[in-house]
């Protein structure tokens, strides 16, 4: 399912003395089957934007199209119910929302709520638990006896059990150790590739943007300040750095090299790209094994 925002704005408590504008002039397009990263500071409007994706909030101005559905400030709330099944949002620290006695029951909760029978719901749950890489031996365990990383996988399986077309992830690797982060990102990559899920990832990890996303959206003060492929967005590292945002570790390192007289045709985004460029540059100079 594709997503389109047209001149969207959102104001909290509009028409009261407490009104505050959280989003303005938002125009964006997210293609079906794409992997989009949204980055920006705490308070830049990322979370408010996310909540528009499954109808938790409606725009106060402008228009949003998600698949066939059009959402405007006038759309009745009832018309948004369908969206909740199509767009699954994994909020930060989703393991805090686990509540059932067993892992399988927790994951089966949503499909049961949407009208499946107990056995149908459990069959869906088992399939989703397999997708997130959890072994059958834990299905009957209490989710609260699992490790942090496993609990988070259970919570994600619970969202996948609604069989959404779009999966929205709000900092899904926060608080995990480095191995857990790598494993978790590999899992999303696989869901994206094999289940053809459209993925929208909110993150502070620019290395993940460089490694996984095909589209990056940079937000600041309630609006989009840059959007494009990671290559295009990170081609001018100073733009992001001046906005107090990071760039991928490789790009930052490469920037230091350019200050020392190196030049790259494209600003490298990953260590593999930089290593390729360095080998080409330095071998031509004859600085290493050619002479040794």
């Amino acid at each position: 399912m594709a997503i389109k925002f047209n001149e969207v704005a959102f104001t909290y408590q509009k028409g009261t003395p407490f009104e505050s504008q959280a989003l303005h002039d938002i125009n964006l397009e997210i293609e079906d089957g794409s992997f989009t990263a949204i980055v920006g500071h705490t308070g830049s409007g990322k979370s408010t934007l996310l909540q528009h994706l499954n109808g938790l909030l409606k725009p106060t101005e402008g228009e949003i199209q998600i698949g066939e559905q059009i959402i405007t400030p006038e759309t009745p709330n009832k018309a948004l119910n369908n969206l909740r099944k199509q767009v699954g949002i994994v909020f930060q620290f989703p393991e805090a929302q686990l509540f059932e006695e067993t892992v399988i029951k927790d994951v089966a909760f949503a499909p049961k709520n949407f009208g499946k029978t107990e056995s149908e719901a459990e069959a869906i749950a088992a399939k989703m638990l397999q997708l997130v890489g959890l072994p059958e031996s834990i299905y009957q365990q209490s989710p609260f006896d699992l490790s942090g990383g496993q609990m988070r996988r259970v919570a994600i399986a619970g969202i996948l059990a609604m069989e959404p077309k779009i999966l929205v992830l709000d900092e899904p690797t926060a608080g995990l150790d480095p191995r857990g982060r790598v494993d978790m990102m590999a899992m999303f990559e696989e869901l994206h590739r094999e289940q053809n899920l459209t993925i929208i990832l909110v993150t502070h990890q620019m290395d993940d943007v460089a490694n996984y996303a095909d589209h990056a959206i940079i937000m600041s003060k309630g609006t989009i300040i840059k959007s494009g492929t990671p290559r295009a967005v990170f081609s001018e590292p100073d733009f992001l750095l001046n906005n107090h945002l990071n760039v991928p570790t490789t790009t930052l390192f490469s920037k230091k090299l350019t200050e020392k007289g190196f030049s790259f045709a494209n600003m490298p985004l990953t260590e593999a790209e930089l290593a390729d460029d360095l080998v080409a540059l330095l071998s031509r100079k004859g600085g290493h094994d050619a002479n040794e």
Partner: protein
Amino acid sequence: MTEVIKVDHLNYQYEAQKELNEMALKDVSFTINKGEWVAIIGHNGSGKSTLSKNINGLLAPKSGEITVDGLVLSTETVWDIRRKIGIVFQNPDNQFVGATVEDDVAFGLENNGIERKEMQERVRDALERVDMWQFAAKEPARLSGGQKQRVAIAGIVALRPEVIILDESTSMLDPEGRDEVLSLIHQLKDERGLTIISITHDINEAASADKIMVMDGGQLVKQGTPAEIFALGEQLVDMGLDVPYPERLKAALKKRHFDIPDDYMTEEGMVDWLWQLNSTK
């Protein structure tokens, strides 16, 4: 140098481990000097947090001895020892008790029976040190993650401890919040000669330490300076830490049959090394 913490042949077993004959901490011994910053790393379940809970008496060792600032930990000394050690936990939202920032910082002092006038002075002093005095009357819920952790640190600073344990206290923060907290800890260490123990998965936090201790399977398996530990490269991932960037790039270059020294290089060191190579005709 004065020893502030001494752990001698420490063993710990959780109740559930008894049947399986497993141990959470196995024969752990080390010393930490006053004013030192020590990072403890290790993957999840390696015993890092169990160790910190033993040090301040939240868990009672199966055997072995812990000495903090000259006091041997026992049921008689545990309260004195807890006064010497403050812990900042991972989740900034789980450690607030006061309705305002000021009340929250005062809580620990009240519990320790500090007289009102002195309490007010200490609260103000602590909040000024963490640069949060202007938020004294605010509700903690209104603060950012980094600000909340700074208030939690103020609550500890007000009690004037010898040691601060950071138990993954920056892992739930955004990059800015993380920088805020780390630079504050640097400043407190320099001004007050505090001893810092940070349990962390964050490479920058580990790089701030004077010494890194690596835990695995309940044992202390390695100790060294950040440069010594970071030179382990890819093995760091199994120790619950990211690989430092220069080591990642070195691995990628080696894969391409590029000659490169094995010694650990900082980022600046590696930039200079490449620059030298690039300037050689």
